[in-house]
């Protein structure tokens, strides 16, 4: 296919202009902005139609809007095809339209849609732009949207159904490998990120180690704090103790100071005596002398004495006092005598009356004597016997058994009589005498109350012989013996009478005894009075009164003598008592004067000296009292020996105010420090408590995980890279064995234009090794990339394109080749090498060379006999358009 003619009716800056074109090589020359791109666009439009296909979107049409240019685009071309020459009309009204007619015919009929010509089928517009219409940049790099198609052509056919293009897999692998790892770290591969993370992780491990070390330090610090706190507490306690001791130490210091100033008084000079004022001592001496005056006078007088008569009386005083004391008994005995006599008379009368009642006559002397001998017990026995008999006959008991008087009754009676007799004569005590009387009376009563031998009751009951026998000597009323009961009553009467007679006898005996006793006493009194030559002694009680008087007088005299002796003794005692005291006081006064002279030699008088000494002593006493008080304080034991007391002048003495202030400040500082340390201690304890441990292990885990990931990543990268290399090698070998047509043609072109220096082109998809060329004499292909020169690369790429065009155009008309400033980087030598090739190519396809370089245009014109289209001469510059 060759363009023979281009008729720009209206196409941007090119309008109403017809270009007759060289069928071989045409050079379109013109400065920038003179329509070279518009020319190229027209070529493309003729072949493929308008792109975009609407006027509203087409850039040239849009540019023309609002200008003098026509916004409808219209271009016509005359093309030489294998089948003949045709005319092609492309018009863009609202939409692009096409009419194709044989050469020489007018365009008639309806226009077709904006379709490509049938002759370009199999070649896309994009492919045409990149492969057929080459700019300088396009020569090396293919546009992405056609690259795949081109690569497919370069790589050959796949034989595995569904297999992805090898170049794409390789590209993925290469991309993946470079994303994973690059030795230069360009493009921030994952390995670089991981390395950075590992560095951070290592830092974290170090930080963890430091933190762990810090924890150990915290433990040490905590222990040190504990010790420091203990020390602070100790210091605080010491200061507080000093604070509390300060007052007492001040007292002790004061005491010590006073002691140092004290003037001790040597009281030993007083020889144990107390210190008193001399005036007082003189007064006491005088008082003692006054007290001694009277005793001394008493002792100077004669003592009192008794007369011999008084002495004799006093010698028998106890006897006299005994007699005087027995006066009461004497008087009682007198009264008892009168009573006994009266009692005897009464009993005698009663006995006589009872007898008269029994015998019917007054008793004679014999009666009473007989009665005293009457066997009352025999009568009682006889009566009882009779009574039994009587009862036996009358069925009534009549009498009780009577027993004889027991011996002990007789013994009591006799003893009582003896005692009564002795008592009456005052041989024994009167009480014993009275007891004897009572015993006698009791014995009599018992004896008299004892039933006698049973009287012989008359048998049968009218009489009792035994009774009669018992009563034989008594002249009694007969009725008294008529029955056992009457006899029993008689017995009772006789018993009572016997008792009365016994009492009478005792009364008489008692009266006799008392009378004898009284007489004996009176005689004794009289004899004593005579012995003591008491005048007018008299009888009876008078003698006793005289004795009593004499004794009283003698006693009065003795009392006087004794009182006098006592007075003398007392006086002597006083003298004995006061005299040593007086001597002592005098000696004391002497010693006192000596002491005063010793301790107050400069005193004007003893009183002044004494006052001075007394002040010294007062001070001493105060010190002693104060010391005692302080000793009583429990702190004395602890503090009395405090070494600080030994240097009271020291500045740090605890009791000094300055020291107290210092101490207070230090205590406050300690409290603050303790608080601060407590706070710190709490922080440390909390920190240690909250420590979960294994910090380094955790950090190492992070590092390890990253390192493992990096190791795996490296291995993965190597594996991916190896995979890519394997695939690349497989692809290369496979292509070597099944080389694509494109490369074969391109290799031929290359060998041609380089005169055999480069022999073989090879192609693979990859980041680093796409197109390779084999240099003559070398086995390993070298990549078509720097350091291979740009010119050589352009040669290679041009050959590749030519091979590609040949391949694409296989079996149909060859499409034109457009070289848009492609040769601009070529030096003259290489261009010279190129022209023959282009001449050869031009034999098969039309070539358009677009350039702004006039020299190049002229060179091509002459080298290839090319036609020149000078756009600069046709299109004014200000009307030009630019298209990319």
């Amino acid at each position, binding site marked *: 296919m060759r363009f023979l003619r281009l008729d720009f009716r209206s196409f941007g800056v090119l309008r109403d202009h017809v270009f007759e074109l060289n069928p071989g090589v045409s050079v379109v020359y013109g400065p920038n902005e003179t329509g070279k791109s518009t020319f190229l666009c027209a070529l493309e439009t003729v072949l493929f139609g308008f792109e975009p296909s609407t006027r509203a979107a087409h850039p040239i049409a849009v540019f023309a809007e609002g200008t003098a240019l026509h916004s409808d685009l219209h271009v016509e071309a005359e093309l030489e095809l294998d089948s003949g020459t045709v005319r092609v009309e492309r018009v863009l009204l609202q939409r692009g339209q096409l009419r194709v007619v044989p050469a020489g015919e007018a365009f008639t009929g309806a226009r077709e849609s904006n379709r490509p010509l049938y002759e370009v089928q199999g070649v896309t517009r994009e492919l045409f732009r990149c492969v057929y219409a080459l700019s300088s940049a396009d020569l090396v790099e293919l546009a992405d949207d056609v690259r795949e198609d081109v690569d497919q052509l370069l790589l050959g056919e*796949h*034989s*595995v159904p*569904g*297999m*992805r293009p*090898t170049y794409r*897999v390789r590209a*993925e*692998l290469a991309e993946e*490998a470079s994303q*994973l*790892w690059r*030795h230069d770290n360009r493009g921030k591969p994952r*390995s670089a990120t991981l390395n950075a993370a590992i560095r951070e992780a290592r830092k974290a491990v170090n930080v*963890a*180690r430091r933190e*762990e070390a810090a*924890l*150990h330090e915290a*433990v040490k610090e905590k222990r040190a704090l504990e010790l420091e706190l203990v020390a602070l507490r100790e210091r605080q306690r010491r200061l507080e103790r000093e604070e509390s001791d300060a007052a007492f130490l001040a007292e002790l210091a004061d005491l010590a100071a006073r002691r140092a100033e004290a003037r001790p008084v040597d009281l030993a000079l007083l020889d144990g005596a107390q210190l008193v004022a001399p005036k007082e001592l003189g007064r006491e001496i005088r008082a003692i002398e006054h007290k001694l005056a009277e005793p001394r006078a008493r002792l100077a007088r004669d003592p009192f004495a008794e007369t011999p008569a008084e002495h004799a009386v006093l010698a028998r005083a106890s006897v006299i006092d005994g007699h005087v004391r027995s006066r009461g008994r004497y008087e009682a005995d007198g009264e008892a005598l009168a009573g006994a006599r009266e009692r005897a008379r009464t009993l005698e009368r009663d006995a006589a009356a009872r007898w008269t009642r029994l015998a019917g006559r007054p008793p004679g002397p014999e009666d009473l004597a007989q009665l005293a001998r009457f066997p009352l017990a025999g009568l009682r026995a006889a009566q009882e016997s009779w009574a039994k008999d009587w009862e036996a006959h009358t069925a009534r008991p009549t009498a009780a058994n009577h027993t004889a008087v027991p011996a002990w009754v007789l013994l009591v009676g006799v003893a009582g009589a003896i005692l009564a007799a002795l008592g009456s004569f005052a041989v024994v005590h009167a009480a014993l005498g009275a007891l004897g009387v009572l015993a006698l009376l009791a014995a009599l009563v018992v004896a008299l109350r004892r039933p006698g031998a049973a009287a012989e009751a008359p048998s049968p009951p009218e009489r009792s012989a035994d009774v009669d026998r018992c009563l034989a000597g008594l002249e009694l009323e007969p009725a008294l013996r008529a029955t056992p009961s009457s006899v029993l009553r008689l017995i009772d009467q006789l018993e009572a009478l016997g008792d009365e007679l016994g009492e009478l006898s005792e009364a008489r005996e008692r009266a006799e005894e008392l009378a004898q006793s009284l007489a004996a006493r009176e005689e004794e009194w009289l004899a004593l009075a005579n012995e003591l030559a008491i005048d007018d002694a008299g009888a009876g009680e008078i003698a006793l009164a005289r004795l009593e008087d004499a004794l009283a007088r003698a006693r009065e005299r003795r009392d006087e003598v004794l009182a006098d002796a006592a007075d003398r003794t007392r006086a002597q005692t006083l003298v004995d008592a006061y005299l040593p005291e007086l001597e002592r006081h005098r000696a004391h006064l002497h010693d006192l004067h000596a002491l005063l002279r010793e301790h107050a030699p400069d005193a004007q008088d003893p009183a002044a000296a004494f006052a001075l000494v007394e002040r010294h002593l007062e001070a001493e006493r105060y010190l002693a009292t104060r010391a005692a008080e302080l000793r009583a304080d429990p702190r004395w034991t602890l503090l009395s020996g405090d070494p600080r007391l030994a240097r009271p002048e020291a500045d740090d003495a605890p009791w000094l105010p300055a020291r107290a202030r210092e101490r207070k400040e230090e205590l406050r500082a300690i409290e603050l420090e303790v608080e601060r340390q407590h706070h710190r201690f709490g922080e440390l304890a909390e920190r*240690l408590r909250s*420590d*979960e*441990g*294994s*910090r*380094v*292990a*955790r950090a*190492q*885990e992070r590092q*390890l*995980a990253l390192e*493992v990931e990096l*190791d795996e*990543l*490296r*291995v993965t*990268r*190597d*594996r991916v*890279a*190896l*995979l*890519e*290399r*394997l*695939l690349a*090698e*497989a*692809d290369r*070998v*496979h292509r070597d*064995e*099944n080389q694509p047509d494109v490369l074969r043609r391109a290799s031929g072109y290359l060998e041609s234009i380089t005169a055999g220096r480069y022999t073989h082109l090879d192609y693979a998809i990859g980041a680093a090794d796409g197109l390779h060329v084999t240099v003559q004499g070398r086995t390993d292909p070298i990549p078509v990339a720097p350091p291979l020169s740009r010119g050589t690369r352009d040669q290679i790429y041009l050959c590749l394109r030519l091979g590609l065009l040949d391949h694409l155009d296989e079996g149909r008309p060859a499409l034109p080749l457009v070289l848009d400033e492609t040769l601009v980087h070529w030096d003259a030598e290489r261009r010279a090498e190129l022209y023959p090739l282009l001449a050869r190519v031009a034999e098969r396809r039309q070539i358009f060379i677009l350039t702004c370089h006039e020299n190049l245009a002229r060179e091509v014109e002459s080298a290839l006999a090319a036609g020149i289209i000078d756009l600069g001469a046709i299109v004014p510059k200000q009307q030009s358009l630019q298209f990319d």
Partner: protein
Amino acid sequence: MTFRFLHLADLHLDTHFGGRSLAKERLRAATSEAFRRAVDFALEERLHAVLVAGDLFDDPCLSLHTELELARAVQRLAEAGIAFVWTCGNHDPGGKTKRASGLALDRATEDEPWRERVRVFRGPQPERFIVKDASGAPVGVVVGAGHSTDREDKNLAADFPRLATDLPVVGLLHTQVESALSAEHHDRFAPSSPADFERQGYAYWALGHVHVRQRAVPDLPVWYAGNLQGRNPRETGAKGGLLVEAEPGVPAEPVFVPFAPVRWETLALSELEGVDTAAALADLVEARIAKLQGTVDEELAVRLELTGPCPLAARLKRAGELDAFEEEAIERTGVVEVQLRTRGLRVPYDLADLLESPSVLSKAFELAAGARDDDRLLERLAPAVLAGLPADADEPERRAYLRDLLAGIEDELVERCLGKEPV
């Protein structure tokens, strides 16, 4: 007299773990918990001693928290009359400037007499320590030597003396017995050979370093207790200590006592051609883990090795997808950790079909196969710069590395060339 003690080793306190945050924290806690269980066991059983054969902690920077916990545990033992004997390993070397020296567990003071029952072997020269029971009567002798540095290369076992005593003698050492199972996974520190343990006639050798519990020397009472808590998917199975009752002159046979609260296990999943949805795979994984859970007492951490052709292969090999799937599995099963290994997984394809006609792919297969044997071809295929190989690597290392990279590369080729176009 029977010397009763617990043989522990490789506690690796304060170790750092890989995996998810929660799993790491659980494993860290499990390590401490396992140690606490061991101490409680010793106290309950009224043992005479607890012997730690090195690597008590993992890193020189033992945290204060762990240090205090350790000291408390040791104090509990010692105050109960139980000796704590620890020999230093490569992770806890006992040199003067090392961390183990700073831990003065065995420095007895008047205030802390319990420390007399603690002994640390810090240096390479063998020392002996007489273990006494609570009443003070000697019950056994422990002979130990420690690593003074973290790269002890001397054979320490060879210097252990033969002792003339009526008491049972126990050797305590952190060493790599070269013939031991899994020894190749551990650095070659204080290396020893089976012959080094023959002449002493000890009743028992308590060893540490190799984390697999085992009799280290056939026919001799030389034992690795294994580590106390599995730390990674390679350390599978129950972990704990060995209870030993040693008699004088009689080789002791230890009894394993589990202490680790978390147990690592590995499951192999193959025949996944029919598993074409994530839900189906999740169900399969859940069922397999549930079945495993029914057979163990411990909490589980599971590694799943997925192999063979699977329609999900390409998807599962993407990092984000894999993480999400692992999270899903953890949520479903409640285990501590799930790790999927998909390297053995491949997209389903018919190799014969691929190789039937010449293509880039068949050529690549051909080249990969050839490169495995052909060094020149391997070098031709190698990337100019390798990221994962040290700069000072020699040729054999480089080739080995490259051949490692080639492993399974055909599957990846297929995935990439036949897979879907990325969006």
